[in-house]
């Protein structure tokens, strides 16, 4: 990768925002954080969050609600999203790995790809682990993998050193045109290796996650354990909403007057009781335990890992943070490895 020295990340941000709509995660002043647009004149300092933001980049490409087609005057009309070129600035390795995972899953989905192809992804390496993350264990981070980003920001341990900027794709290279940056002669590879070692040490061995994955794939978990976990699932869909790789949706048809109609798709959740229920009433996943089992098989199952060359879990820890029943990833894995 080509590496440049970058005196201030705000300079890159302003440059990219000149030609694209740029989004960055910022505090909302009320205790929350959101993806917000940033103009090229914006003077706010870029302050990378020490925790993954509450919401990943998922909804930028897999929209929470999206029109699929209109039926008007007896004819069907496709509806693809109108997009403008955009930049997501400051994505952590875990969230970028999730985008790469969904890029595969939605490879043939025109709505997803229309949004995705209009997007430039600027990643940022983590120098320290977030509180609940385990990217080192599932192999998604903490160093941004080159094939998941267009540009990679590398902050420095020393506050007075310039940032480094790595060019991860041809689109990233083109996006830098017009920005005069000196080539970096630092040994950035060594810095990244050191960062990875530090973060991995902070995250620890994650023994329950590792052992839980093994037990889950051995089919060693009996249904009573899953039902016990299911008792703690409220079916709130918090986990599936914040999980950056969850991709289930429901088509939703509605009449729009005068014999016209439209179909949208909306995010759905495999934890909802009616997710698989057929019109006949037959429900192959009628119990909460079956549905919880499904969710985790989808994240850690060998068959899915084989198909996507990665786990469906990127180790961001968001499910731990939102689950009111304490059956996020660490809660579940702890129970699965308990003898």
């Amino acid at each position, binding site marked *: 990768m080509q590496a440049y020295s970058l005196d201030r990340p705000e300079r890159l941000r302003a440059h990219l925002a000149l030609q694209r709509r740029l989004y960055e995660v910022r505090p909302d002043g009320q205790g929350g954080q959101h993806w917000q647009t940033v103009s090229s004149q914006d003077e706010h300092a870029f302050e990378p969050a020490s925790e993954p933001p509450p919401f990943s980049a998922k909804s930028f490409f897999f929209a929470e609600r999206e029109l699929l087609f209109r039926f008007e005057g007896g004819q069907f009309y496709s509806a693809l999203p109108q997009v403008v070129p955009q930049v997501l600035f400051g994505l952590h390795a875990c969230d970028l790995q999730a985008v790469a995972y969904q890029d595969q899953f939605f490879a043939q989905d025109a709505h997803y790809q229309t949004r995705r192809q209009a997007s430039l992804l600027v990643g940022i390496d983590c120098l320290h682990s977030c509180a609940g993350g385990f990217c080192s264990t599932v192999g998604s981070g903490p160093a941004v993998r080159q094939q998941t980003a267009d540009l990679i920001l590398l902050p420095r341990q020393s506050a007075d050193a310039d940032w480094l900027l790595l060019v991860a794709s041809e689109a990233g290279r083109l996006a830098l045109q017009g920005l005069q940056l000196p080539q970096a002669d630092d040994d950035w590879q060594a810095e990244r290796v050191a960062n990875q070692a530090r973060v991995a040490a902070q995250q620890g061995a994650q023994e329950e996650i590792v052992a839980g994955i093994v037990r889950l794939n051995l089919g060693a978990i009996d249904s009573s354990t899953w039902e016990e976990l299911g008792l703690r699932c409220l079916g709130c869909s918090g986990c599936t909403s914040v999980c950056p790789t969850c991709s289930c*949706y429901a088509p939703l048809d509605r009449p729009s007057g005068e014999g016209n109609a439209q179909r949208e798709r909306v995010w759905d959740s495999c934890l909802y009781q009616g997710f698989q229920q057929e019109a006949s009433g037959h429900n192959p996943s009628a119990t909460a335990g079956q549905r919880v089992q499904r969710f985790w098989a989808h994240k850690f199952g060998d068959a899915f890992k084989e198909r996507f060359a990665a786990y469906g879990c990127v180790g961001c820890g968001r499910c731990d943070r939102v689950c009111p029943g304490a059956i996020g990833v660490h809660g579940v894995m702890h129970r699965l490895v308990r003898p």
Partner: protein
Amino acid sequence: MIDATPRRLLLLEQYADGEDARHFSLCIEQPRASDKAVLPGQFFMLTMPGVGEAPFTYISLPDAQGHFSALVRRTGLLTQALFEQPAGAILGYRGPFGRGWPLFFGDHRVLLVAGGCGLAPLAGVIEEACRPRMPAQLSVIYGARHAAAQVLGRERARWRQTLRFIETCDQAVPGQRQGSPLEHFAELFATQPPEVLLCCGPEPLMLASAEACLQRGIAADKIWLSLERRMHCADGLCGHCYLGSSYVCQDGPTYSYDRYLQLVGNSSPPAIAQHDWFC
């Protein structure tokens, strides 16, 4: 890229064909050459504009003019609305989807077991076997709850002339065959034991049939089931029709029994109570 937008489908006519079931003649408007490439056991997505979209199987497969037929049982809002449509109504079509039945015609003896509406996905296979010069290697056991619930009346009248076609009802009138399809296996296996099973019906009936055939010496990879799941998008994306790591809308709905067991993670045979044998 996937085109999630339906094409126009015309409702030509419909007639009652069993309790709460109707037989629909449909026509794909401006058919393409690819519309004819349908295998028995595949399905299409039918849109009732403003109500929804649901999967149905083909009875007769699309011809060069785009004509085909389907059997629909009234079970929900969409089918209720469909039953009320007049001839000429504009519906939506996407398809075909999924994998059809493996066609074992040759020198194999094939047993078809159908329960209730499960006869519909097998109709195309039976039609194939009824063709002139096709060796009559196919036997059918068709179970229904009672006589009024039997579907595909016109087709069955024709099929009976050509094939061994056993019809049985959970509750039969005196003089008619009674009981689950499984109760007639012994009779069929006594003469010319089948080597292949194709089965479609309620899942417990399918699993019990599969186990019964395994015990009688048919290999698990020669036993095929057609699974029902909530195939909501048919593109392998929405997630609703999962069966383990597989999506039924793409990898199914037909599965060999060994693959099915692998997907549900069962190394031991499923426990099916005898009261689940019925249609």
